[in-house]
C-alpha cells in the first residue's frame, strides 16, 4: 500500500466512522416511539361508565373514556381518549350489556349511529354495522370490536368496561399494546 492508497483507505474509514458516530444515535432517536410504553393513557384499565338504569334496552348510547393522559412530555388530568357504545340487552340475555369501541375496525374513524337508527355507520368510508356489530357491507374487515363488560353487584349495577384499541384492517381482533 503506497502513501496515496493509505490516504484513500484512511479517508474512507474515517469518513465512515464520523458518519456512523452521528447516524447510529440518530436512528435510535427516531425509533424512540417503538419503546414499550410504561405511561398511562394507553393501558387497558377497567372504566366505570354508567349505571344500568341509564341504558334503554336495544338503544345504543355513547360514553366517553376519560383518563389521565400522558402525551409525550405533557400530563393531562382527565382527558377524553376515546368513546364506547353501550347497548343494553333484554332481561335474561347474557351478557346484559354489549360494549363496542367507537373506533372503526376499518381505518379507525369514529363510528356513529346510522341515520335511521337501525345500527352503526362510519362517516369516513361508509362502514355499516347492525346493532350487534355485524358488518352490513364489505368495507369493514371484521365486526365492530366488542369490549369486555362487567356489572357490579349494586342494586343499580355500574357498567364497567375494559377499554382497548385493536389493530385496524386486520380480519382478526388484535389488541394494540
Amino acid at each position, binding site marked *: 500500500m503506497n*502513501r*496515496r492508497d*493509505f*490516504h*484513500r483507505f*484512511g*479517508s474512507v474509514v*474515517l*469518513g465512515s*466512522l*464520523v458518519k456512523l*458516530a*452521528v447516524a447510529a*444515535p*440518530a436512528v*435510535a*432517536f*427516531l*425509533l*424512540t416511539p417503538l*419503546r414499550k410504553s410504561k405511561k398511562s393513557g394507553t393501558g387497558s384499565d377497567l372504566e366505570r361508565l354508567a349505571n344500568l338504569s341509564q341504558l334503554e334496552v336495544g338503544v345504543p348510547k355513547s360514553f366517553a373514556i376519560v383518563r389521565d393522559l*400522558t402525551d*409525550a*412530555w*405533557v*400530563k*393531562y388530568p382527565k382527558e377524553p381518549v376515546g368513546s364506547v357504545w353501550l347497548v343494553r340487552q333484554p332481561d335474561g340475555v347474557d351478557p346484559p350489556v354489549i360494549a363496542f369501541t367507537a373506533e372503526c375496525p376499518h381505518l379507525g374513524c369514529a363510528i356513529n349511529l346510522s341515520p335511521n337508527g337501525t345500527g352503526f355507520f362510519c362517516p369516513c368510508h361508509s362502514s355499516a354495522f347492525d346493532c350487534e356489530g355485524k358488518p352490513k357491507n364489505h368495507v369493514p374487515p371484521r365486526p365492530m370490536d366488542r369490549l369486555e363488560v362487567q356489572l357490579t353487584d349494586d342494586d343499580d349495577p355500574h357498567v364497567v368496561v375494559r377499554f382497548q384499541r385493536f389493530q385496524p384492517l386486520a380480519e382478526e381482533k388484535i389488541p394494540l399494546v
Partner: protein
Amino acid sequence: MCKSLANWLDDRAGLRSGLRSFEEETIPGGARWRYVSGSALASIFLIQAFTGLMMMTAYSPSSSTAWGSVFYIEHEMWMGWFIRGLHHFGAQTLMVLLLLHFLQVLWAGAYRAPRELNWWIGLGLAGLILAFGHTGYQLPWDQKGYWSTKVVTNIMGGAPVAGPYVKTVVVGGSEYGNQTVTRFYGLHVGILPVLMFLGLAAHFALRRRHGFTTPDVEVDPDAPRETYWPDQTYRNLLAVTAILGVMIALVIHHGGAPLDAPADPSSSDYPARPEWFFRFLFQMLKYFPGRLEWVGSIAIPGALFLTLASLPILDKIAPSKLVHFLARALVFTLVGGAGYLTLQSFQEDAANPKFQEARLKADQARERALFLASSPKVGVPPEGAGYLMRLDPLTRGRAVLEKNCLVCHRFGGEGDEKWSAADLKDFGTKAWVRGLLEKPDSDDYFGRTPECDGMVEWKQSSKLNAEQLDQVADFVASFAKIPEDFTVDEWLDSPGVIEHPGNELFQKECGTCHLIEGYTEGGLRDAPNLFAWGSPQWLTRMIRRPSSPVLYGYLEDDQRMPASPRDEMTDNDLKTVIRYLMNDYPRPAVAEAKEAAERP
C-alpha cells in the same frame, strides 16, 4: 449490474466527474494540516445541521411547550441526550474552529486579490454562525435562554435610532413569549440555514476556483504530486474525527446538554451569563455606562467588523505588507484582549459570593424542575412548563410563605429576627401540637404572641401527664384530615373519633375554651374553633379571614394576624402555601428516605 447502474446515473448526473475533479486538484507544495480548518468547520456545521434536523422531529416551538419538549428529548428519548449534547458542544466547537479558520486565513493574507469576494463571504458566514448561536440558545425557553435573549435583544434595542424597532421586530412584540420562540425558531432552522448554505456554496466554489492560498515558499519540483483527494481529504477527516472525538467525550462527560428550570419572568435573581465565547463582550459592557452601552456592544464590534471587511481595499491603497502586519497585530491584540476579559469575567464570578448564591439557587430550581417533570405524580402540566414551578408547593408555596408569612412567623427557625408568632414548621402535626401543649409560652409557639395567653394560663393549671398530652396531641393532629364537606356530626360519627383516647381529654381540657358546636361547650375564655384545625379548609379561612367569628374575631384588628385577601394572595398561591405547610408535595425518594432517617 452495479456498474451499469452507476454509469447510467453518472451519464445523467455527472457525479463521478464532479468527484474526479477533486482528484485532479493538485495542491502546490502538498497537502497541509493548516488547510483543514475550513473543511473541519464545514463538517462540524453539517453535524449541527443533521443533529438539528433530528431535534426538529421532537421540538415544539412555543413558550408553553418548548421546555417540555426539550426535557423530553434530553431525558426521555433514546439517545436524545447524545444528539442534543452533540448539537450543544458542536455549537461551541464551531466558535473555536471559526476563530482558527479566521486566523489561518488572515495569516495567509487570503483577503488579497483575487480572493476579496471570498473574504467578504467568509465574514458574512461568520456573522451567520454567531446568529445561529444566539437564536439557538433561546429555544429551550429555560431560564438561561430566556434571560440571555432578553439581554441580547435589549442590547439591540439600545442602538440609536432604529434599535427599538429592530428589537420589537425580532422579539415579535414588546413582550417575550410565543412569538419570540417561533421567530427565533424560524430564524434558527429556516432562514439562517438557507442563507448559510447559499453562502457556503459560494464560499466553496470560490475556494475551488482559486485553490488554497499557498505559502510563498519554493516548491520542491521533485516532491510527490499531492491532490485534494485523497491527500488533503485524509488530513481533513483525521482532524474532523479528532474534533468529533473531543465533542463526544464532552457530551458523555456532561451527560448531554444543560437544561435550566423553565423560563420564569418573575424571578428576581437569575444570574444570566452568556456562553463562554461571548463572555468578553459581556465583560466589556461593564466598562460602559448604560447610556453608552451601544458603543461597547454595537459600535466597537461593528467598527472592527468593517475594518476587517475593508482589508482587501486597504491592501490596494496602502503598502500590502504593512496592512497585513497591522491586521495581524490588531487581531492579535483583540484575541489577547478578549481572552483577558473572558478570564476576568470568570474570576469575578468565582470571587463573587452573591453570584455563587444565585447560581446555587438556580441549580436547585433546575434540579427541582427536572424532578417534577420526570415524576410520574406530576409531569409537565397542560398549561405549560412555566406552571411546573408555579404549581409546586416547594417552590411557589415556599416563596409565598417567605414573602407573606415569615415577616411574623418563623419556619424551622428561619425568618425575621424579630418574629412575633409561632414557628410553622410541621404545623398541624402531632409533634407540633405536642410541643405547644408542653410549653405554650415557648418562643416557637405563643411566647411572643401576648394575645394567645389563654394556652399559657391553661398550662399552669393543667395536670395532664405526658402520656395524656400525647393522646390529646394525636387527637388534635387528626383534625387536619377531616374532609372539607364534613359537618361536626358526620365527623363524630366516623370511626375512630369517639373511641380515640384523646377525645375525652380534649373535651375536658380544651373544650372549655375552644368551642366546637355540637361537640364542646367553650365559653371559659375566647378561643378559636378547632374543628378541622390544620386542614386546608381551616388554613384557608385562617389566611383569608382571621377575623372570622369562628377564629380570632374576638381580638382587636391590630392584635390579629393580618388577612391576605385575593388581590394580595391568589388562589393558586394560597393552595401552594397550604400544601407547603402540610408537607404535601412530591420529593425525590432519596430526600424522603434521608428525612425519615433523621426523624427521631
